[in-house]
């Protein structure tokens, strides 16, 4: 038996997901009809036979905690090991996690207690299917001190990632976090294997360094490479996505509904587990028309759904058309609505004759950095009154009520936020 402990970094905010992460941590963002992002990493762990997992939380952990619970859906409710939530705490050296490396540093005692040979450091906000035994085998075969999973990405996207240069042995000779001028297209996936005793030494050194931002990508890994340690790159050829932006979130969801999706949720040998609400199966009415879509339990569909992903308990009224959209749990769409190119968060109420995501393209007036993808986003618990027309690239905030709409026409790029 391998002695491996997995640590999942799940404290991230995911600022570039805008209103979708206003109230919840990025790992808790719903994905693929019934899952949340962290389900993919948790499922990969148990499918790889790793049953001792620490989840490091910080930003808005409430929903994430209740989703994970004691780890029952992933069979991580165990007598020995199992799932442990590691939140920031007071006492001794501790405080808020200053960075990813600091988060692990602050939980050194927990790791020591488990006494693993290797620690597997993972992110809670990536969508992928990976057998971690492959990277662990590779790590041991190479007699490495650390191993980083990587993937070739299009060169024009390379500056979003940690980029590495390797020699013929796959040993990493150069590493740069988010370089302006990338020297290769080999990107870090944020999946690391370290020998624990080795990593611990560096975590302690890093914690004492006042210049450090205490981040794996920015501080620890560059230092390891500088000091010529045995760090190797494990090339991963499967599907992996960091759904970091609204556009990529929307795209990755819709990809699942394709005839040959890049990630196969239906593989009975590599299942994804999640905590779901008990709901009856979906019902499709006589007048419904559904194509190229994922629908979920509890859905009642009376309208037209094309190229879309509907989460649990979504109701689509008669005469409504949903196209190229992601609609999260419990959202109710009234009659004769049109929703296109949109992401509608959980438990939104859309009344009759509403149009969303229609019209011309326009830059966002709220935050063009975040809302760039020409996708209209509606935050959770919002209510959209009858006859409203909302354009492309628009934002409706979290918990917006009917009276927050001062006009029935929100032009493309516009926004409506919750008034106090």
């Amino acid at each position, binding site marked *: 038996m391998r002695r491996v402990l997995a640590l999942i970094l799940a404290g991230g905010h995911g600022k570039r997901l805008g209103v979708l992460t206003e109230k919840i941590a990025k790992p808790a963002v719903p994905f*693929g*009809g*019934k899952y949340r992002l962290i389900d993919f990493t948790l499922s990969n762990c148990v499918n790889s036979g790793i049953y001792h997992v620490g989840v490091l939380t910080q930003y808005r952990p409430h929903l994430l905690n209740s989703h994970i619970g004691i780890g029952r*859906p992933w069979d991580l409710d165990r007598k020995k090991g199992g799932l442990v939530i590691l939140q920031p705490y007071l006492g001794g050296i501790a405080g808020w996690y200053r960075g990813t490396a600091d988060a692990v540093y602050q939980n050194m005692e927990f790791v020591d207690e488990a006494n693993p040979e290797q620690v597997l450091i993972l992110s809670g906000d990536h969508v992928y299917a990976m057998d971690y035994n492959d990277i662990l085998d590779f790590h041991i075969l190479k007699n490495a001190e650390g191993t980083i999973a990587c993937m070739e990405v299009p060169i024009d996207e390379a500056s979003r990632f940690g980029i590495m240069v390797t020699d013929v042995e796959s040993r990493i000779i150069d590493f740069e976090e988010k370089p302006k001028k990338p020297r290769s297209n080999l990107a870090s996936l944020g999946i690391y294997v370290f020998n624990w005793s080795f990593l611990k030494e560096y975590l302690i050194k890093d914690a004492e360094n006042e210049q450090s931002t205490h981040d794996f990508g920015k501080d620890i890994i560059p230092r390891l490479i500088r000091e010529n340690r045995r760090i190797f790159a494990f090339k991963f050829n499967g599907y992996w996505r960091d759904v970091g932006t609204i556009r990529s979130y929307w795209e990755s969801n819709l990809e*699942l*509904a394709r*005839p040959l999706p890049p990630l196969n*949720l*239906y593989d009975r040998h590599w*299942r*994804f*587990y*999640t905590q*779901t609400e*008990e*709901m*009856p*199966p*979906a*019902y*499709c*009415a*006589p*007048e*419904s*028309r*559904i*194509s*190229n*879509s*994922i*629908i*979920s*339990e509890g859905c009642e569909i009376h309208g037209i*759904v094309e190229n879309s992903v509907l*989460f*649990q308990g979504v109701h689509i009224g008669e005469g409504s058309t949903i196209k190229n959209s992601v609609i999260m749990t419990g959202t109710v769409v009234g009659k004769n609505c049109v929703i296109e190119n949109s992401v509608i968060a959980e438990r939104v109420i859309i009344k009759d004759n509403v149009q969303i995501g229609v019209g011309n393209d326009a830059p966002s007036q709220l935050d063009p950095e975040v809302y760039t993808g020409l996708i209209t986003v509606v935050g959770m618990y919002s209510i959209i009154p009858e006859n409203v027309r909302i354009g492309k690239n628009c934002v409706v905030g979290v918990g917006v009520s009917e009276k927050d709409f001062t006009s029935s026409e929100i032009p493309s790029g516009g926004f409506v936020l919750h008034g106090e």
Partner: protein
Amino acid sequence: MRVLGLILAGGHSESLGPLVSKRASAALPVFGKYRAIDFTLSNMVNAGIRKVGVLTQYNPRSLMDHLGSGKEWDLDRKNGGLFILQPYVSAEGSYWYQGTADAIFQNMTILRRGEEDYVLIGSGDHIYKIDFTKVFEFHFSTGADITLLVKYLDETYDLTKYGIMQMEGHRIVSIEEKPQHPRGNLAFLGIYFMNKYLLMELLYNYVTKGENDLLNIIVAQLSKLKVHGFLFNGYWRNVKKGIDEYFRINMDVLKKEIREELFYKYGKVYTKLKDLPPPKIGSSAVIKNSIISDGCIVNGHVENSVLFRGVIVKAGAIVENSVVMQDTVIEEGAIIKNAILDKEVLIRQQSRLVGKEKLAVLEKRAVL
């Protein structure tokens, strides 16, 4: 007040043919993801019952697999929880259950040992949603010794298959089991509520004298005890009454009112989790008036049908007026009408299965 739930789930019904050749009728799959017993079990749990005994006998494997530790119903408990009561061999001999009363009698320990004061006895074959706390209230406010659930059945039920009773006020004055010529249409729903000690007393008195049926014992008490009828007005059907009834029940859920009553009223229906992805509907799919469950992949034409979990309907296939159970695959161009396909059936390309007056039924793992 503490209530012990007992669910009679040992039944076998000849009239269900191949559907029950490998499972107890309480384990019959219904509505895409449930099994018949989920309804009674969920009703009990939703009413606050924390200890439930399930009496099994006929072919219990799939039922056991389904119930597991009772976790899905929140019945995996230190105190109380789920108890499986199967027939057993003991030093005194071995006995199959001879009837409902005998089955409970042989498990007297669960009655004797618990702290419960009352017993609610239901059947694993019944499909209905109820707020049992209303039954408890009725029992106490009318001062009943025994409360039986009753319902006026309409012409869609075969009255000769039910216990037909006469009531005066709340009180039941006569019960006729499966009468040739039923007097009236007030039927017993097979659900009993009474004081635990009264039940124990009745069992000690009658079962030892050879009476093995609980209803017969109660019939004999009608003049001595206050046996009251709680009138239930909701949806209630018994899957054990035959293939047509089983089919009809599944089709009923395509009606909005029935779906709402069964799935959303008086709490949820809980069932064993399967961890399948949500259904995927392809570009050539047409789905009308149908239930589609997790793990399904549909590219064909599905109309007035219930698809269970993991069913695959390939492009060009037609499924109409049919119940298709878990993991069945219907290949390209096949036609299925008026049929019940059990689990893991394979319908090959271009095959045809069309039920006429009689439904077409394929048993588990059949290949066509």
